[in-house]
């Protein structure tokens, strides 16, 4: 099967000046849509994906054959109801599901980019995605929504394009990547580059895969997406298919086995260099600094109605960091609602079956759609 048959791609001809200084043009942006764009073209929702997400938000992902990453929230009659709304999601540039990324061939050298690929920022990702609005003839999105790195894109999108979204829903995110966030990302990158199969990023040309390093990166990151309480309740000290400890280094505990599994399935669908690039983009994200220390200035020109959502057990992007966004918006009299949802599922709460979250998200979206904003 040719993977590319299942991937819709927009070739962006217009040159895009990246934050790193390089300019790219004629590059592919892979995307997927769900639902139907109405006649007025005012029912479009741009969904922005997180670090390891892709454009296949819901339904069966044609590449992995598994449920889309946000199947709980997006689909017919769900929070983001595809019977009513036209959902667009693009694979971020730097990614590995069809959009321009480090696994692509450099037309000049005819070699795979690897680490020769330009460093991408959240700002670059958003500036690439906005081309989809022109492509579909959408003047203004009804909403721009995303969790985690998706939330950062939401903030950047509204800041860059203050009149292109009626509503914005940044979820479990931050306006400025913290030292702890950067530290965890660096741990992941070090795991990848320490894998002797990484070969300075040229692994594909040499038929090699740094899957051990990428799996360790995923395992470490996965722990940060869960809460201590959630882990304890799900796994505790339960043993993996054995009655007693084996006095060795096999996966004695279920949590070990679970993490190893998470690592192993991840390497099948994700590119190690993309992981380096996207985590770097997250680390470089600092909307506060971009506006000289005053986050409010990022949103000065916008009339967009915001709804910020955080989760009680999210220690990766804790409530306080989400509240900073609310505070910045309130201090300029912007229209912002905020709620912290009770959940012990950690940062991953936004991806999982958390009924209070899904219900509130739906209510906000449906009510706002009826309003004349």
């Amino acid at each position, binding site marked *: 099967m040719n993977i590319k048959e299942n991937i819709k791609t927009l070739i962006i001809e217009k040159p895009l000046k990246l934050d790193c200084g390089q300019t790219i043009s004629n590059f592919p942006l892979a995307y997927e849509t769900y639902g139907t764009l109405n006649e007025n073209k005012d029912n479009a929702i741009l969904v922005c994906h997180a670090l390891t997400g892709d454009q296949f938000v819901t339904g069966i992902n044609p590449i992995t054959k598994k449920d889309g990453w946000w199947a709980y929230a997006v689909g017919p009659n769900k929070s983001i109801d595809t019977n009513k709304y036209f959902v667009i999601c693009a694979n971020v540039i730097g990614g590995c599901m069809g959009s321009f990324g480090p696994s692509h061939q450099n037309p000049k050298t005819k070699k795979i980019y690897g680490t020769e690929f330009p460093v991408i920022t959240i700002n670059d990702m958003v500036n690439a995605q906005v081309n989809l609005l022109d492509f579909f003839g959408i003047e203004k999105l009804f909403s721009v929504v995303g969790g985690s790195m998706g939330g950062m894109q939401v903030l950047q999108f509204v800041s860059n394009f203050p009149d292109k979204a009626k509503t914005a829903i940044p979820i479990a995110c931050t306006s400025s990547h913290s030292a702890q966030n950067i530290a965890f990302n660096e741990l992941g990158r070090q795991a990848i580059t320490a894998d002797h199969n990484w070969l300075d990023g040229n692994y594909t040309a040499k038929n090699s895969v740094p899957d051990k390093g990428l799996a360790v990166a995923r395992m470490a990151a996965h722990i940060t997406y869960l809460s201590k309480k959630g882990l304890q309740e799900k796994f505790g000290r339960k043993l993996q298919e054995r009655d007693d400890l084996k006095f060795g280094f096999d996966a004695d505990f279920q949590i070990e086995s679970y993490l190893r599994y998470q690592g192993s399935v991840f390497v099948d669908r994700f590119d190690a260099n993309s992981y380096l690039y996207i985590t770097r983009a997250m680390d470089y994200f600092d909307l506060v600094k971009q506006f000289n220390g005053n986050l409010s200035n990022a949103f000065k020109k916008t009339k967009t109605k915001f709804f910020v959502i955080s989760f009680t057990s999210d220690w990766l992007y804790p409530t306080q960091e989400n509240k900073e966004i*609310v*505070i910045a918006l*309130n201090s300029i*009299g912007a*229209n912002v609602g905020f*709620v912290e949802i009770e959940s012990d599922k950690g940062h991953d709460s936004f991806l999982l079956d958390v009924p209070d979250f899904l*219900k509130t998200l739906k209510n906000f979206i449906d*009510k706002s759609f*009826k309003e004349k904003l």
Partner: protein
Amino acid sequence: MMKTEYKIIASMIENNSSVLDVGCDNGTLMEYLKVNKNTNIRGIEISKEKVQTCIAKGLTVIEGNAELDLKQFPNNSFDYVVLGQTLQAFINPELVIKELLRVGKKAIVTIPNFGHWKVRLNLLTKGTMPITNSLPHDWYNTPNIHMCTIKDFVKFSEIIGFKIFKSLALKKKNISNINNSNLFFKNLFGELGIFLIEK
């Protein structure tokens, strides 16, 4: 059915003004003001559940605590800030009043009157902390840690130094003005005091 209290509050608010409802509960007053007064209305509410109810009604509400979270609003952000029957529940009511008057050009504060005759009689005859319709809690589980009377609030305005523009006493559905000459009686018979104040 609309509470009389809310109708009085609404009558104090000019059309098309901006309003912050502090402790907005399930958003009943917010909805009323939005529809009847065409206000640009925001709410702040401490209960997650109630915030979600408000969001479901299409209201713009943030989860927060007036003592900690009003500071994010700049001076004079709103034409009116409303605080309905919650002043007595704060650890520091003085700070909250000052914050209301900083954030709002005007504030509307309502207080359950601890000087009501039933409350007084309850304590006098039973010798236990009063329990009435408007104060249904026991002393050990009440959220109301700083109860005051209508008279206390009037004195409070002199101590803190804010102006009372309008003061009304509510007894069942009876509304009456409070002034210096009838303060003694209003403090005895009013169940609720409603004050429009300014710094």
